[in-house]
């Protein structure tokens, strides 16, 4: 017998007859939700369809939601993030409902901060993001700002949020805050961080900030969010709420919850400082590789024909000397190679040890204090926009969006 979701069924098991609702199949067993709310799993043969039944599902009363026209307009750009998502437990699918009403119904406090326009350029897991989607994202955000959004909130899965945020920050000169926000703990739990992060993101989006940033819990507590610069943030924990940490610089702002007081850092880029501009070209044929002791230099052959390669080297920016000939071959055949460090903090310096000097001779570019992931995204953008290799080198060593502590001096 085949069953469909929500079929009313009777289960005969353990000498009992129990009414329930068919949920799903599990091999030769079926999963049935009992009246108590428990799901049980019993052999399929124990389950029979039943007709009628009195249990009309209680449906919640749906009240219409009005947005306050006096409040500033924010755009919520969703890439499939968790703010308003609900999981369909029967199919495992994430509901694609995504209207301002849905969001406000889930997080009513948002209605007191702004009014919202929503747009969903894609609906994917963040590990399936790619440079092409970053471009779509940047264009969508630019469109929203040009249409009067006084701030933009981007909901995004946390796994690759820092790549997307960094990419948008290179492609877009924004006069208003563009705030990436996500949740570490699923939205279907009462303890989820999604609501607080969203409320803080909205507060940041109406604040005096004027750059692309990431808004997440600053600590494990539900008391303060940090606004991290898009080019200076890293997901540093697999599951904690405060996984996102600024590296090498203080966050651009902190936001107290639930009061919503925003404290901007002195060096934060302010609203209106940048003029709206979109430079959405990217060179996607770039790679990122982490060097490890004993790495077979032949690994580097895989990047032959690539326009750019970022290496996360050891310490001050080193690789084993047996890699030098291949690297030299790569740079000579037109691949831009940028050296960053696996150390989370500090700058690359290839002038201290011999290997470093050989690397410089081989034509690699020192990436300063750039995080390897950020250097990759920047390299894509620079290669997409610079007119020659001289400009590529210069731009890679120039602090464009806070990704470097300062411009890197060229050698005489």
């Amino acid at each position, binding site marked *: 017998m085949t069953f469909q979701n929500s079929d009313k069924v009777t289960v005969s*098991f353990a000498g009992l007859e129990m009414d329930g609702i068919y949920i799903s199949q599990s091999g030769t067993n079926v999963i049935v939700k009992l009246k108590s709310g*428990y799901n049980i*799993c019993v*052999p399929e043969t124990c389950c029979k369809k039943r007709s009628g039944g009195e249990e009309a599902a209680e449906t919640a009363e749906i009240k219409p939601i009005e947005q306050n026209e006096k409040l500033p307009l924010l755009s919520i750009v969703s890439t499939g993030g968790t703010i308003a998502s*609900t*999981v369909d*437990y029967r199919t495992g699918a994430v509901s694609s409902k995504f209207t301002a009403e849905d969001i406000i119904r889930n997080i009513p406090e948002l209605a007191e901060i702004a009014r919202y326009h929503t747009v969903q350029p894609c609906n994917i897991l963040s590990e399936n993001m790619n440079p092409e989607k970053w471009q779509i994202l940047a264009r969508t955000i630019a469109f929203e700002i040009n249409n009067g959004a006084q701030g933009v909130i981007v909901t995004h899965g946390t796994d690759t949020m820092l790549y997307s945020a960094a990419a948008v920050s290179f492609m877009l000169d924004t006069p208003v805050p563009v705030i990436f926000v996500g949740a570490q*703990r*699923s939205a279907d739990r009462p303890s989820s961080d999604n609501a607080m992060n969203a409320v803080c993101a909205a507060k940041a989006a109406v604040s005096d900030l004027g750059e692309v940033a990431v808004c997440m819990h600053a600590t494990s507590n*539900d008391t303060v969010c940090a606004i991290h610069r898009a080019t200076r943030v890293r997901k540093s924990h697999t599951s904690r709420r405060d996984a996102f940490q600024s590296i090498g610089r203080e966050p651009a702002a902190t936001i107290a919850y639930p009061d919503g007081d925003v404290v901007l850092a002195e060096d934060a880029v302010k609203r209106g400082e940048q003029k709206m501009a979109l430079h959405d070209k990217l060179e996607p044929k770039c790679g990122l590789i982490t060097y490890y002791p004993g790495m077979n230099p032949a690994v580097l052959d895989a990047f032959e024909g690539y326009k750019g390669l970022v290496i996360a080297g050891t310490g001050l920016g080193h690789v084993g000397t047996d890699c030098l000939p291949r690297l030299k071959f790569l740079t000579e055949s037109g691949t831009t190679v940028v050296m960053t460090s696996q150390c989370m903090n500090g700058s690359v310096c290839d002038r201290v040890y011999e290997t470093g000097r050989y690397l410089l001779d081989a034509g690699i570019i020192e990436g300063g204090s750039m995080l390897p992931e950020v250097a990759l995204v920047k390299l894509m953008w620079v290669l997409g926009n610079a007119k020659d290799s001289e400009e590529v080198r210069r731009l890679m060593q120039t602090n464009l969006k806070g990704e470097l502590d300062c411009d890197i001096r060229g050698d005489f």
Partner: protein
Amino acid sequence: MDYAALGLKAGLEIHQQLNTKEKLFCHSPTVIRNSDEHFGVVQRYLRTAVSEMGTVDRAAAEEAMQHRLFTYYTYDTTGLVEIDEEPPAPMNREALDIVLTIAKMFSMTPLPELHTMRKMIVDGSATSGFQRTALAALNGKIGEACRIETVAIEEEACQRVEDTIFSVDRLGIPLIEITTSPCMKTPEEVHDVAQHIGMILRSTGKVKRGLGTIRQDVNVSIADGARVEIKGVQELDLIAEVVRREVQRQLSLLAIRDELAARKASVPGLVQDVTKVFEGTASNVLKKAKCILATVLRGFDGLVGMEIQPGRRLGSEMSDYAKKCGVGGLFHTDELPAYGVTAEEVEKLRKETGAGPQDAVILVAATEAKCRCAMKMILRRANMAFEGVPEETRKMLEGGSTAYMRPLPGAARMYPETDVLPVTVTKEHFDSLVLPELLADKEARFMKEYGMDEGLAHQMVYSEKLPLFERAVAEGIRPMFAARTILASLKELSRGGYDASALPDEKILAVMHAVEKGNAAKEAVLEILTACAKGLSVRDAIAKVAPSFSRDELVNLVKSVVSERAEFIKERGKSALGPVMGVVMKEVRGRIDGKVVSEVLNSELEKFL
């Protein structure tokens, strides 16, 4: 009281902590900590989440009326799962096997696959906002007339330190939840069934002991009343009283219902601001309040203050509802003038609100928002009085009365735990589980095999040291001696104010072995144990308290005593044994077994005579 005529139906839900090494869904130890030792603090808000069916549970919605910041104490034994910063580990198999064993003892049928659910609780007692739970087995037997409906494996919640502060040490300890059918018809029967289930749980030897490690929830209803679930009865001795008092409460509420109908009472629902009436009042509560609201309940005079169970009135019920909004409680005219409120003020209040002598007036005092919220809840409860008994979840108060907690939860509080994979239980595995001997059977066996009287056997079987006793007997120690020594050692510990670690099982066992080998006298066991509890090793304790006395030494001693008292012995003959024994024992008490002394003395006397 004729409970059969009242149509009393009661069922039990028993929660017992399991004594596993690790928690149910993480690797932290199942150790209860002193909250003063907490290492860190985590602060969180909880919101209601929508169930898989798209609805919000009514009980959860009511708990979430206040946006409260909860504080959680953490310890060096706390992991990330307990503070909801990491997905759960797979289910603890040790815990599951204990649950399945207990299910087997009730002749239940296990489910082939366990699906873990989230049971939403947003009162702060779970950091995630839910408790993980899975049905493990269905339909078992207990006694003649009762059935066990379900057995579930679930997580323990946090302990409340105070108000909104919780301690996460208890969170996640495995629990078994045993739900009976509503098969009990008298309060005493509820007690007996609970006691029997407790005995079965203890028979496994794998459940936690001590206050708070077992909690009974009781479901009670009478004909024309309603199902009420009373949470957290910790003491078995109170359980019958809780049922009795609930029956009394339901009867009183039904009587109030009938009286209201007879009086044609009504709840108009008008809420008035009476802050001005209490300007210059002497009442501390009212003086401090920014806002005082009042409502009139027509025809309720005298009924709001009527006692419905010891220490509880209809007014207390309304007050419980109001507290959901963060107010401290309420005042009603049945209890006024009192608490600093004067008769003149009450008169003024009645006039201002247009309340007649048949009417009751309810007051709340707090901020305006809290007052409005509280009034809504009070009116809700007042209207329920016309129906009689509302279905509720209640908590037990000291003595056995109860207070309102929240509405009975519905199925909407349950939704799947997507982070835990289903657990398979095969028939082979279930069949392979070995059932322990029931404590009741063990007690009978101890009486029969070891010659214990009923009191001793009962005490031994229900003692925490039962495993030690069984080990001692297995190692060849005489059962009666072992039982007496072990129980005495426990008494000794509590008398001296030592904790259990002061006298580990190994030491008690070593002392018993020393006696059995003749290295220490049975009479000195207590003193040796006391010395051990003070920190001495077993060897040092024996040497200090009672250096052992060899048979040869004894023979010499007896010989010299006999020769010293030669005349006396000649005079008295055999009957000199008693007095001479006394003289010898004075020297050797506790150093050599009395039996040996009488043996040696007998043979020496015979030689002499």
